[in-house]
C-alpha cells in the first residue's frame, strides 16, 4: 500500500470534480478512485495492485444515493445501497427474486453489510495472477506484459468472451441479474446525469484488458433502474463451498410465461465469462415456446456454443450447460 490523499465527498458535484481532476488514464489506473464499501478497493491497494494517489470517499452521499425504491412498474436502487439491505428487502424478494438471490448468495454476511451495489458491479477480477504483483505477466495490470493465466492455473477463469490477451472472469453475481433484466444505469458526471444500459458498462478484454468499463474518470454510478417486475426469476450458483465463495458457474434467469407459453426469456451467465454475459441466442430459442427438458438442453447448449476452455477450466462448459438447464427448470416450475 502506498500513501494517498483521503477526501470525503460533501456532495455529488464535489465528488465528481475531485475524481475528474485525476486526469485521463483508463479508470482502472486513474489516480483518484471513489471509495464505497472498500471491500474491493482497499484489498487491491493493500496488495499494491491499485495505487491511487487520492481516494474520494463517497459514503457521505448515502443519504441521496442509497434508496431502495420499488414502484408499480419499476425499481430504482441507489448505488450506495448495501448488498445486505437490498437482499433482505421484501418487495425485491417477491418481485425480483433473481436480484435478491444474486446478492444473498454473494460474498459473506460481513462483506454484504459493508459493500454497496455500485462497488459490487465495479469489482475487479479475482484472477490470482492479477492480484499478486509478483507475477509480471498480466495484461490487465501491466498492459503488454502477457498473460500468466493463459497457460497457468486457470480453473477459475472464463470460457466465454475471452481474448488472446486475457481470460479473467468477471467475478460478481449481481451484475448477471442486472444484465438479464435490461437494467439502466444512472451515471453522475461533471456535466450532470446520463443514462446508459447496464449491458454497455463492461467491456470484453479484447486487446485492452486493462480497460474494463466504459465509465470515465470523474463519473460515478448513482443508481440502477429496472423496468417491469420479474417475479418468475431465479439465480442459481454453483461453487466450491456452501457460502462465501465466487461462482464456478451461475445463471440468472427471468421468464415471462403465460398459459404455458414463454413470452419473454432472459438468461445471463456468471462465473464463466469475462464480463456480465447475456446469452441472447439461447434466449431466442425459448420465446414463444412451451417448456420441456429437451428445449432446456438445446438452450443450454446454445448458451455455451462459443465457449472455449483451457487446461483447468474446460469443465465449466459442461457445468454451465447443466446450470442453465436446471435454472430454467426452476424458473418454469417456481410458484409465484
Amino acid at each position, binding site marked *: 500500500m502506498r500513501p494517498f490523499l483521503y477526501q470525503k465527498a460533501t456532495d455529488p458535484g464535489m465528488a465528481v470534480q475531485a475524481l475528474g481532476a485525476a486526469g485521463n488514464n483508463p479508470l482502472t489506473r486513474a489516480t483518484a478512485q471513489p471509495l464505497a464499501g472498500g471491500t474491493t478497493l482497499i484489498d487491491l491497494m493493500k496488495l499494491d495492485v491499485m495505487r491511487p494517489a487520492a481516494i474520494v470517499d463517497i459514503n457521505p452521499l448515502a443519504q441521496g444515493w442509497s434508496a431502495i425504491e420499488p414502484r408499480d412498474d419499476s425499481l430504482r436502487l441507489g448505488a450506495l445501497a448495501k448488498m445486505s439491505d437490498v437482499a433482505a428487502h421484501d418487495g425485491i424478494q417477491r418481485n425480483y427474486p433473481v436480484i435478491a438471490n444474486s446478492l444473498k448468495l454473494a460474498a459473506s454476511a460481513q462483506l454484504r453489510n459493508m459493500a454497496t451495489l455500485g462497488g459490487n458491479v465495479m469489482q475487479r477480477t479475482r484472477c490470482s*495472477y492479477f492480484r499478486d504483483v509478483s507475477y509480471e505477466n498480466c495484461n490487465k495490470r501491466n498492459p503488454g506484459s502477457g498473460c500468466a493465466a493463459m*497457460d497457468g492455473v486457470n480453473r477459475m477463469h472464463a470460457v466465454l468472451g475471452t481474448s488472446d490477451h486475457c481470460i479473467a472472469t468477471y467475478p460478481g453475481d449481481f451484475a448477471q441479474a442486472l444484465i438479464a433484466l435490461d437494467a439502466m444505469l444512472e451515471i453522475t458526471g461533471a456535466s450532470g446525469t446520463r443514462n446508459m444500459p447496464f449491458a454497455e458498462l463492461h467491456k470484453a478484454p479484447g486487446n485492452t484488458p486493462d480497460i474494463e468499463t466504459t465509465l470515465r474518470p470523474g463519473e460515478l454510478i448513482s443508481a440502477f433502474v429496472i423496468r417491469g417486475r420479474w417475479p418468475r426469476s431465479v439465480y442459481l450458483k454453483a461453487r466450491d463451498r456452501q457460502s462465501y465463495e465466487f461462482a464456478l458457474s451461475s445463471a440468472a434467469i427471468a421468464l415471462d410465461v403465460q398459459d404455458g407459453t414463454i413470452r419473454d426469456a432472459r438468461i445471463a451467465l456468471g462465473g464463466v465469462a469475462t464480463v456480465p454475459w447475456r446469452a441472447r441466442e439461447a434466449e431466442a430459442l425459448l420465446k414463444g415456446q412451451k417448456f420441456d427438458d429437451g428445449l432446456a438442453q438445446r438452450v443450454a447448449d446454445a448458451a455455451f456454443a462459443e465457449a472455449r476452455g483451457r487446461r483447468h477450466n474446460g469443465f465449466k462448459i459442461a457445468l454451465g450447460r447443466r446450470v442453465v438447464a*436446471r435454472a430454467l427448470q426452476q424458473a418454469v416450475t417456481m410458484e409465484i
Partner: protein
Amino acid sequence: MTAAVPEPKANMGQSVPRYDAVVKVTGRATYASDMPLADPAYAFLVTSAIAKGRVDRFDLDDARGVRGVIDIVTHENAPKLKESKLFSNGGYAGTTIEPLKSADIAHDGQIIAVVIAETYESAREAANRVKISYTATAPSATFDSPGTTTAAAKGQNAQFKEDPKVGDFAKAFDEAEVKLTASYDTPTQHHNPMELFSTSCAWMGDNLVIYEPSQYVYGLKNGVAEQLGIDADKVRVVNPYVGGGFGSRGSMTPRTAIIAGIAKRLNRPVKLVPTRDQGFTITTHRAETRHEIKLGARRDGKLIALRHEGAEVSSRPDAYCVGGTKTTTRLYACPNVDSLVSIVRADRNTPGFMRSPPEVPYLFALESALDELAVKLNMDPVELRRINDTTVEPIGGKPYTSRSLMACFDEAAKAFGWAQRSPAPKSMSDGDWLIGHGCAATCYPTQMGPSAARVRLQRDGRTRVEIAGHEIGTGAYTVIAQTAAERLGVPLEKVAVFIGDSDLPPAPVAGGSNSTASTCSAVMMVCDQIRQRLFKAAMPGDSLTDKAKETVGISPAPSTQAAKSGRPPDLDKAFDALGVSIVEEYGEWKPEGAPPDSFRAMHNGQVRLVGGHTMKDQIAYAFGAEFVEVRVNRFTHEIRCPRLVGAFSAGRIMNPRTARSQLMGGLIWGMSSALLEATEIDERTARYVNDNFADYLVPVNADVPGVEVILLSEQDDHINPAGVKGLGELANVGTNAAICNAIYHATGKRIRKLPVRLENIEV
C-alpha cells in the same frame, strides 16, 4: 450437559470451561504481536518472485526514499548468522535453506530482503518499491516435473529408519483370491493458522526476548541462540497464547534469527508481521504425496497381503518425509506386508509437519483401498475392518496397549444410522441431491516426551503451576490446571497456570499430540512431591510408602484414597509443621523407554518423543471411526457434507469439553482436506498461485451443519501416568477416505485424488 459440554463417562475428567475462555472471547488474550515493545522498528519482508536462480541486483533507491525507512537488509548486508541444522539432524530448523546468506534462491517466496522502518506502513510501502533483477533458472515444481530426482527415504532421512516388511508379500499377493491395486494422490496443503507468523525481538543488553507464536519455545530459544552464537540462557521466548499451530510452528524458521540480528544491530526492538501469503512460503507445508496400495485377501475378507508404496515431494537440500507406512503396515492383521517410501526432490521449500503428518495422506490411501476391497468382496466395510482387527501389530508382533477400534466403529455406526443405509451405490437421493454414506478408521500414535514442571502451593490452597507448555488452542491451560487441582485436592479456581515462556521448566514440542500426556504426567509427579513433603511434615509418625499415587490428600477433596478413607491432614497443620507458608517443588519426568540423554535434550530444546510403534514391547495408538454423509448435486455436481460423526477412544479424557472441541475441529479439518484444501502450484514457475485466504478454501460454518463427536471410555495403564493418549491429531485422519468412500456410494464412481472438486464428479 449439552453437546458442547459432554457428560464425563468412566475415566474422564470434568467438562470444566476453558481456563482462558474469558480472555479469549473478550479479546484480552495477548498474542505475540500484541506484546508491547518500547519504540519498535517495523520489519516487512520482501520475498522472491522466482523459485530458482539468483538475485542479480537490487534497485533500492525508490524504496530508501520512502519516509521513515531505516534500513533495507539484503544478502549483501545481512547480519552474519551461524549455520542452522535440521531438527532431524540434531538441530532446530525446519529447513536448511538459509535466506540472506547469498544471492541464491531455492524456492518461491524465499526471503530476499527485509525493510526496516519507523512504521509498518512505511516498511510495507518501501517493500513494494524494491526493484529486483533476477537470473531465473527453470525450476522443477512437483511430481512429474522435469529435473526432479527420486530416491528411497531410507538412508537419506535420519528419522526414517525402516520400510516395514514382514512375511512374503509377493507370493501371498500372487495367491490371493481377491486383489486390489490402486493409486492415490494428496495435494500440497498449508496450515494457515489464524495468527500470522509474526516475530518481535527485543534485546536488553546481551539478553534477547522473542515474542513469536511457537509450538516449541525451548527449541526456538536454543535454535536462535545457536544461530546468533550466544548462550541459550540469554534467550527467552514468550507466547502465552498461540493462535493455532497445526505443526507450522514446531520447528524454527529462518525469520527469527534474522529479525533478532537486525534488532541487535539497530539496538532497538524490531517487530515483524508477515502477510498471509508470505506465510505460505516462509514456513513449512504438507507435501503432496502419491501412493500405490496392493491388497490381497481371502474371499472371507481376511487380508493376506498388503503393500503400501508412498512418495513425497521435498526440497533440494532436505530429505523431509512423513513416511506413514509405519502406521498403515501395522493397523490391520496381515501376515505378509511390504512397503516403500521415496522422496522426490524439487525446487520447493522444505515441507514439514502438518496436523497428523503421516496419517492424513497415508490413511487416505489405505482406508480408501479397504473400502474398494469391501466393494470387491461385496462386504460391509465395517465388517471388513472387524475381520482384520487385531490386538497385535503384524510387523514386530507387539501387542497394542489398548485398542478400541471396533467399539468406536460400533458406537459411531449406531449414532450415524449406518444400518439404515442401502449399500448399493447411487441408491439414495433427496431431490436434486444424491446421498452417499461412507466410513473409515482413524488412528494416531500415543506419544510422550520428557517434561519438567514447577508447582507452588500456598497455605490457603492457592497453587501456581509453571511449565513451558504451549496453548495452541487445544486447552493446555485447562487440563494442566485440572491435573494440579485434582492431584493437590485444591479447588480449580485456586490454580494459576503459567505456560508459553522458555524461562519456565521445559516441556516438549506441542506436536505429535504429546502435550497433554507429557505435561500432565510431569505436573502429577511434581504435585505428588508436594504431597509427600506435606504428608511427612503433618504425620511424621506415619510411614508413607513411596507410591506417589497412594499419598494422602491435603484437603477433603474426594480425589484421593486417603481423603476418602477419612484422614485428610489439613493444610494448616502441614504448613505449621513445615514452618513455611509456601511449598514449591520442581521435578523432571520422562516416559518409560526414553533415551538416556532425555533430560539433557529436553533442556537443549531437542525432541525425544517415545510412543507409537517405537515402544519397546508394546505399541500404543488412539483409535476412532468416522462416518460421513455426502450429498452430490445431480446438476451442479457440488459436493456437500451435511453430517460428520466420529467415535474416538484415547485413554483417559482429561476434559470432555476440550477433547470434543479438538475432535470436532479435527473432523471439520478432515472434511476440508478432502473437499477444499489444496495449494495450487504453477508448474512452469514452481510458484504457489492461491496463496491467500480468499483462494485457499477452508470450510465456513455453512459447510459443516452437523458434526457429532462421541467419546468412548477407555483405560490404558501402560502408556503414561496420566493415562492419556493424545487426541489432537486423531479426528482429522481418515475423514478424507470416508468422504471419498461416501462419494463412491453416492455416485458409483471412485475418486482417488484429493481434493475432490465438482469437476471430478460423474453422476
